[in-house]
């Protein structure tokens, strides 16, 4: 799945949409515009890549409400907010809500492009990381009950002998499980194993 990163521009003002679309295209960025947050949400999903650039004040769903909705739907796109008046309260609410950045209208084009580029690469990095985690979690899922237990105990820093006592099996058997587990998880060192066990902890906790 290789989707080109897109800037999802949301503003109720037609002229702003038109002007920013033109400008972004001229700067070589792919953008798509929506006249309301509701319309944008209909299009956005977890596979969308790029970032959201939205006006704060709109009839219907506001920019902050859109930000909250994007977070709750785990769309995972960085959100850049546009506002006509950067009052402290709104800025704080936006940043607390997890906004990537906050820009004041009228926008300096260079700053806009800079912020959007950063947002897109941040999204790509985040996406990459999520993909990696998913692969590793998939690998962990192939482990048997015993292999999983060995992984957990290794992650706690236990030695083979201690694991054997803990699981009431022979140290020799532990060695076998350990080797099979490391092969399945594509781990070459104990350090990798510990990292994987942390991932296991994180996923089982969540």
């Amino acid at each position: 799945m290789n989707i080109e990163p897109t800037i999802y521009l949301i503003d109720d003002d037609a002229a702003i949409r038109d002007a920013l679309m033109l400008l972004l295209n001229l700067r070589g960025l792919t953008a798509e515009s929506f006249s309301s947050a509701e319309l944008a949400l209909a299009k956005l999903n977890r596979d969308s890549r790029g970032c959201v650039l939205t006006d704060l004040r709109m009839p219907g769903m506001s920019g902050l409400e859109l930000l909250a909705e994007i977070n709750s739907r785990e769309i995972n796109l960085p959100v850049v907010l546009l506002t006509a008046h950067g009052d402290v309260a709104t800025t704080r609410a936006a940043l607390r809500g997890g906004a990537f950045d906050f820009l004041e209208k009228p926008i300096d084009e260079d700053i806009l492009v800079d912020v959007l580029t950063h947002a897109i690469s941040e999204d790509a990095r985040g996406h990459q990381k999520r993909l990696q985690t998913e692969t590793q979690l998939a690998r962990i899922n192939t482990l048997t009950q015993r292999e999983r237990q060995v992984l957990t105990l290794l992650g706690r820093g236990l030695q083979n002998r201690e694991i054997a006592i803990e699981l009431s099996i022979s140290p020799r058997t532990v060695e076998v499980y350990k080797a099979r587990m490391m092969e399945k998880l594509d781990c070459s060192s104990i350090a990798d194993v510990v990292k994987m066990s942390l991932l296991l902890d994180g996923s089982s906790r969540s």
Partner: protein
Amino acid sequence: MHGGRSLSSRDLFTRFIQATRAAMVPHSSTTQNSVKPVRASPWVIALYFAIHVALDAVSYVQPVLKLGITPLSPQTGLVLAFLYAYRGNFWWVAAAFLVSEIVIRGIPMHFWILPLQVISITAIYQVAAWLLRKKVPMESVATLSGTLKFIAVASATAITAGTASVGLYTLASLVPTDQFASALARFWVGDLNGILLLTPLLLRLADISLLLRAIVTRPAAFAGVLFGLLAAFTLVFLVGNPGDLRFFYLFFVPAISAALIWGIPGFLLAALALQISLVAGVQRLSEVAPLVDLQFLMSTLLVTGFALGAVVTERENSARLALQREKQLRDSEANLARASRAATTGELASTLAHELNQPMTALVSYLRASEIMMADGSRTDARLAPTLRKAADEALRASDILRRLRNFYAGRDPQLESLELQPIVEKLVEALRRSERSGVESIVMRIDPNLPPVHADRVFIEVILSNLIANALDATTGLAEPVIEVAARKSDKAVHLSVDDNGRGVSDQIQGDLFKAFITSKSDGLGVGLAVSLSLAEACGGELHLAETSLGGAKFEFVLPIDSERRESP
């Protein structure tokens, strides 16, 4: 007799005044301070001593039975004021009584009476001063109740002191028993007048200085009171039969006038002038009425004037207080108004910033885009010309917002003209559709093709209609199938232009205040739209009201008068 007062004695006088005022201060704040006795400085004591003896000497007129019971004892007023201000000077007061007694009246045959009399009288005045400090502080002698209490204390003091003195004389058989009552009356009236006149005068010198300033502002009234005193004096002592006191009541006119004009301080000053002239008159003229009769009349005058003055002073004070409170209230109201105006202005500024930033943002972006297109000099981008035109449009849009705002504030008069409604409505809706604002596609128009011309202001109609449509758009945002119906129909005398929608409708909560400014259900709205619309509708001679919706949301109806109707009516 004070004509030759030297510089140093004037100094002394000033000190006395200052000390008196200083002694007054603790009473105005706390009464607890009065526990500590206050002693006068030697200079003040010396001054007191001198004045005490001098007053006694001056008023030594028509004594009875050569015992020194005069019908006037101004020194008692001084003594009470002195003991009120400096409560630790009992023995000095006793000494002053003793010395003036010996100097003026000589040592009586039964010399043992003298120390007894002096000590008992001083003690009585000490108690009176204590009573005044505790119960009737001088500041309260500005209200009627305080003044009446003060008169009561003065009267009781005089009668007690009189009983003690005359009783001693009677015991010593210096006064025949059958003359006890008349001697006591003389004593009483003399002491009472002395206290009533001098004690408040001496203790409230600050008021007197205020009074002098008040007199300057009303010289005619002052001249009138002065003339009245002189005229009454002339009539009582020079024209009328001196033994006949019928004319005494003439003194009431200037004295009570002073009380009515300047309150207690004014009355006291007039009464002082009167008392001085009485003593002078009695001493000058060979045949006059007995001073004691005059003094009884004087007491009546003093009590009456005092009470009247208190009423006036009290009313003045309460009027001043009311004025102060009113000013405070006005100040706080002004502050509130300023605060709410500031808040409104702030909100307005923020709305304006948002409104203006929209075209500005688009304008800046179009111009930057044009710049980028032109930077590639090799070929001309076909998009350049339309982009520049759009930039110009945005600049016009910004200036249009400013013009609308200016008109809103200028509140210009309506320019009523005969107008065809249909093209105005169609043009406006068309412009809205071009704006691509979300929801505009849901606008349906239902306009009677045979509408008569209306008599109204074109801009006002546009503002009202765009406001109503904007409200409808807001109310229907997020609906799956928003419907906004702009309709126009005619009735007998008017054209009904309405905007109906299937949105949220108007909550009961704000329905009553719907057309008031700053009432809004929108979190980001200013709440002036309908208020402005209503005033514009009324300025056209029309109406704007909430009507029965047929779509389920809210229907606003703007009723415009038909043009022909206008022409027929005068």
